[in-house]
C-alpha cells in the first residue's frame, strides 16, 4: 500500500512540476525578453507585474473556437499536440532532482530520455503533415530535417558523459559527478545544450516556425487549446532540456550550502534563462546555416569530446 502511495505522490509531484515550471519559464521569458528590449512586459494581469499573464492566456485559449481545416487529416491533426507534449512529461519522470528524489530510476535512463525526446519532434511533423497547408508541410519537413541533424550531436555529447560516469542511469551519473567534470565535459555540455535548443526549435534555431516566411510552420492551422498545448510543449521542452543539461553536465544537486533539490532548481532556471537570453540575442539561422552548424560544427565537436573523454578515462 505504502509503495502505491509512494508512487502516486511522486507522479502527482511530477505532474504539478510539469504544469508549473513551464509557466514559470514562460513568465520569465515574457519579463526577461521585455527588459532586454527595454520594455516592461506584461504589467496588468494579476495586478503585480503581470504574474497571471500566462493564466489569462490559457483562459483565452480555452475559450477560442477549435478550428480544424476541412482538408486536414482530422485524427492526426488532433493527436499531434499530445504527441508533442507527452514525451516531455515522460522524460520528467526519470530526472533526479536530489539524492533519491526521482520518479523512477531506470538503468538505461539516459537512453530512455534521448529516445523519448526524439518522439516529441514527431508531434511537429505530424502537425505539419496533417494540416493540409503548404506552410505547415514545409515547416514539418524542416522540423524533420532538423531532428535528423541534431539528434546525432545530442546523442554523442550525452554518451560522452555516460562514458565518463560508467553508467546510463541519470541518478548514477549525478552521483559520479565531480567538480572537475565541468571543464572536462565543457565542450560536450555546450554541444548538448545547443543541439537540444535546435531540437526544441527554439530561436535562433526556429527555422521550422520562421513566421516571417512560413507563417507559423506546423502550427499554422492550430487554434485555441491545441495551439496552447504546442506552446506548453515548447516551454516544457525548455524545462526538460535545462534539467537534462543540469543532470548530465552541471552536477545536478551537487552544490555548497543549499540543499540538493534547490541547487537543481536553480541550475534549471539559470539554464532556462540562458535559453531565453540566446533567443533574444541572436537572429534566426538560415536553413542551410542550420544544417551546416550541425554537421560541420557540432558533430565534430561532439566526437572530439568523446575522444577526450575516452583518453582521460583511460589515463585515470
Amino acid at each position, binding site marked *: 500500500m505504502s509503495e502505491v502511495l509512494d508512487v502516486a505522490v511522486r507522479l502527482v509531484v511530477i505532474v504539478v512540476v510539469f504544469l508549473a515550471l513551464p509557466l514559470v519559464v514562460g513568465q520569465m521569458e515574457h519579463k526577461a525578453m521585455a*527588459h*532586454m*528590449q*527595454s520594455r516592461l512586459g506584461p504589467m496588468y494581469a494579476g495586478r503585480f507585474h503581470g504574474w497571471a499573464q500566462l493564466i489569462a492566456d490559457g483562459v483565452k485559449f480555452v475559450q477560442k473556437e477549435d478550428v480544424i481545416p476541412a482538408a486536414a487529416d482530422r485524427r492526426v491533426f488532433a493527436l499531434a499536440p499530445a504527441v508533442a507534449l507527452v514525451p516531455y512529461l515522460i522524460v520528467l519522470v526519470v530526472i533526479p532532482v536530489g539524492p533519491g528524489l526521482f520518479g523512477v530510476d531506470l538503468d538505461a535512463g539516459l537512453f530512455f530520455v534521448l529516445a523519448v525526446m526524439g518522439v516529441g519532434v514527431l508531434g511537429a511533423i505530424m502537425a505539419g503533415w496533417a494540416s493540409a497547408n503548404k506552410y505547415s508541410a514545409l515547416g514539418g519537413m524542416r522540423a524533420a530535417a532538423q531532428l535528423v541533424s541534431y539528434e546525432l550531436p545530442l546523442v554523442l555529447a550525452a554518451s560522452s558523459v555516460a562514458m565518463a560516469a560508467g553508467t546510463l542511469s541519470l541518478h548514477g551519473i549525478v552521483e559520479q559527478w565531480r567538480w572537475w567534470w565541468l571543464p572536462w565535459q565543457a565542450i560536450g555540455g555546450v554541444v548538448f545544450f545547443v543541439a537540444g535548443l535546435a531540437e526544441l526549435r527554439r530561436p535562433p534555431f526556429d527555422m521550422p516556425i520562421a513566421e516571417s516566411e512560413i507563417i507559423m510552420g506546423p502550427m499554422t492551422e492550430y487554434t485555441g487549446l491545441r495551439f496552447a498545448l504546442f506552446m506548453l510543449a515548447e516551454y516544457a521542452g525548455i524545462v526538460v532540456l535545462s534539467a537534462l543539461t543540469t543532470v548530465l553536465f552541471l552536477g545536478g544537486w551537487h552544490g555548497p550550502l543549499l540543499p540538493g533539490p534547490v541547487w537543481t532548481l536553480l541550475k534549471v532556471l539559470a539554464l532556462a534563462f540562458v535559453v531565453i*537570453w540566446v533567443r533574444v*540575442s541572436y537572429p534566426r539561422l538560415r536553413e542551410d546555416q542550420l544544417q551546416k552548424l550541425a554537421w560541420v560544427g557540432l558533430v565534430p565537436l561532439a566526437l572530439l569530446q568523446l575522444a577526450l573523454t575516452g583518453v582521460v578515462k583511460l589515463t585515470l
Partner: protein
Amino acid sequence: MARIPGEGLAKGLAVTFKHMVRKSVTQQYPEVHPDLPPRSRGVIALVEENCTVCMLCARECPDWCIYIDSHKETLPAPEGGRPRARNVLDRFAIDFSLCMYCGICVEVCPFDALFWAPEFEYAEYDIRDLLHEKDRLGEWVESVPPPPPHEVGAEPPKEAAAASRPARRTDGEAAGPGRSRAEGGSGRSDETARPGAAAGVSGSGPADVAATPGAAEAGAPAETSAAGTREPDAEGRTGAGRPGADRGTRARREAPRGPAAIRAIRPPGALPKRPSAPGPSGTPESPEASRPPGAPETPRPEPSRPPESPGAAGPAESPGPDSAGGGSAGRASTGEPTGHGEPPRGGPSGPESTDRESAGSGSAGGPAPSTGAESSAGREAPARREPPRALRNVRSIRPPGSLPKKDAPPDRGGDDA
C-alpha cells in the same frame, strides 16, 4: 588581428544583458502621466484679457481654424478729450479638429494671449466638440508650465518677458512722444498723450499698438546707439534694476536687446496696468499742461509701485512730480516732449531706489537710451510695477491695449483733471 571565435556571439549576449539591467524606457501612460516639457504642443491656452482682437493669429493660421468675433466699445475720455474706441472680444474659438499644431498663432501673438499647454487629453466622441470656445481655451491656462531657464545673457523667454514688461502706461507716454513726432502736432500729441496717460488710453488699443511698435523700434535703435551708456543700465537693471525694475530701466534694457525685445515693446496707447501706469502716463504725456496734475498723479503710481519696490514709492512721494516725470513726468517738467532729454530727470526721479543707479545712468548717460527704450518700449516707469521675473501666472500678463484695472482709470482721471 586574430579574432577570438565566438567574440561576436558574446558581444550580442552582452548587449541584451546590458539592456536587461538598464531601466526600461516604457512610459506607463494611463497610470503615469508623461512629464511634458514647457511649450509642448498639446493644446493652445488663451489668456483672454490679453487679447486685443488684432486678428493676427486668425490671419496667420494656415488652417483658418481660429474664429474671432468682436465689437467696438467707445469709452468717453474722462477729461473731455475725444472718446476712445477699443475692441472687445466676443468670441475666440479654436477648432482643434482643423488645427495642425503648427504654433504659428502662439508665435505671432504680439500680446501674449496664446500659450502652449502640454495637455493632450481632450479627445471627443464628436468632432464638433473639438471646437474650443474661449472659456475652454481659458481653462488650459492653468496648466501652462513656466518656461525653462535660458542661457545666461539670452533674451528672456516670451512668458517672462511679458511678465517683466513695463506698464503700458509708459508705453502710452512713449507713444505720446512718438506720435507727436509723427503727427507733428505737439498739442495734439499732448492731448492724446493725456488721454492715454489718464485713461486710459485703453482705447489706444490696436492702432496705437501698431504704430507704437514701429515708432518705438525706430526710436529705440537710434537711442540705443546714442546712448551707449544704456548698456550699463541694462547691467544695473539686471541686478538692481529688476527689483526696481523700474519702468525705465527695464524698458531700456529690453530695447537694447534687439529683436527679442520687440515682443516686449508696448504700444503707445496701451494702458498701464495699475497705478503705475496712470501716474507715469499722466505726467509724461501731457507734459506742460498736465504736469501739475501729473505730479499728483505720480504719487498714485507710486503707491501701486510700492508693492514692487518700496523705493519707488518713496520717490513718488517726494519726487512725486519728479518721479512721475522720472520717466515721463520728469520730461514733462523739463518740457521736453520726447522725453529723451528728460529721461535723465526721470531717471533721477528715482522712483526706484534700487534702480537709481540704473535710473541715474539712464538719466544721465542713458537718457537717450532710456528715452529710446521708453519711447520704443513705451513701458517706462509706469509699467514697471510688475514683478518681472517669475511669470507665475500668465494671466497677469497685460496686453498693451488692455484697459487698466480700476485703479488706472481713476488715476488718469485725476491726472487729467
